[in-house]
């Protein structure tokens, strides 16, 4: 409270010094506002980042299990078909590799899964239609 009153008195005494003081005060004020803003942003960000940490942990678990499940299911299908047709190792190997591919695909999809789309109004979104046209060309 003392600071502004003193500077006001200076402004009344001589003009150029008063102007300098004013710009200085302005600079000081904007600096303080910046600091306040940064602090506010920090305080807003903190819980979100800890939540992001936890969901990163969840994501890691997800990616691993997607991959393992893909390979496992592929291998099991191959094993079952081999059992059915009596071609023991061939289909097992083929489907194990396909399952590996499916696992990688699942993992890539899980990693790239976009954050929720903004517009959900149309039941038939345009991108697939565009792709459909492209295919027919």
């Amino acid at each position, binding site marked *: 409270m003392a600071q502004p009153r003193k500077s006001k008195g200076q402004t009344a005494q001589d003009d150029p010094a008063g102007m300098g003081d004013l710009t200085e005060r302005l600079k000081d004020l904007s600096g303080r506002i910046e600091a306040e803003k940064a602090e506010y942003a920090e305080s807003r960000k903190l819980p979100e980042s800890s939540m992001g940490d*936890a*969901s990163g*942990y*969840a994501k890691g*678990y*997800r990616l691993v*299990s*997607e991959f*393992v*499940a*893909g390979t*496992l*299911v*592929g291998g099991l*299908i191959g094993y079952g078909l081999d059992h059915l047709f009596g071609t023991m190792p061939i289909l097992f190997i083929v*489907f194990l590799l*396909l*399952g590996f*591919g*499916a*696992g990688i*695909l*699942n993992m890539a*999809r899980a990693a790239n*899964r976009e954050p*929720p*789309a903004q517009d*959900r109004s149309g*039941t038939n*979104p345009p991108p*697939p239609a565009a*792709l*459909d046209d*492209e*295919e027919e060309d």
Partner: protein
Amino acid sequence: MANDPIHQFQIHDLTDKFHIGGYEFSFTNSALFMGATVLTITGFLLLAARKAELVPGKTQSVGELWYEMVHNMVRQVLGPEGKKFFPLVFSLFSFVLVANMLGMFPYFFTVTSQVVVTATLAVFVIVLVVLVGIWKHGLSWFKKLFIPHGVPLVILPFISLIEIISFLSRPVSLGLRLFGNMLAGHIVLKVFAGFVVSLGALGLGGMLGAIAPMFMAVALTALEFLVAFLQAFVFAILTCVYLNDALHPGH
């Protein structure tokens, strides 16, 4: 016996076996804790909603937080038309969460550490996804799912096969993840706690040596609480994601 890390997962009958229509049934500790889970959820939510105040008390706050978290998740992933799946997702999330949390109590049985339970939940979700997909889009839903757009005809059979395996692996990954996390977590916890007990019995040197596994057990307990929540969350969000594939096929 007391230090056997697998012993906690054994299912035993609490009552005599009885027969319904030629099948043998019995009330097991697993069934008891499933019932306890449902009772806990129902009881807590009834308590939270008992007197709805404008300024919520502690219990009501937790209830509202719980509800709103699932509600936001469903709305974000499924959009407005996913609203009718909210009760399902909320029930699944609550069941898994409370079953996991009840399992964290000493001497309690962890329902979700049984692969039968988690696989049943996962298969239920996937069957529902298939039914919703057929109901919304007819049989062309499978075509949309398994034959992606813009793929050259030469590699299409290959891609379709991979897509089919990818789809079939969903219930496996959904069920195995929850089961694996709960089983592994509880075994590791028990093993480290067992170290403390058996080292502590060896005398002073053993007691000093037991300090490290003691801290480990404490840290693992905290981690297990995190995992218990996260796995319930992941299960619920994946249910939403798969339902979204049923509502809006085509990646």
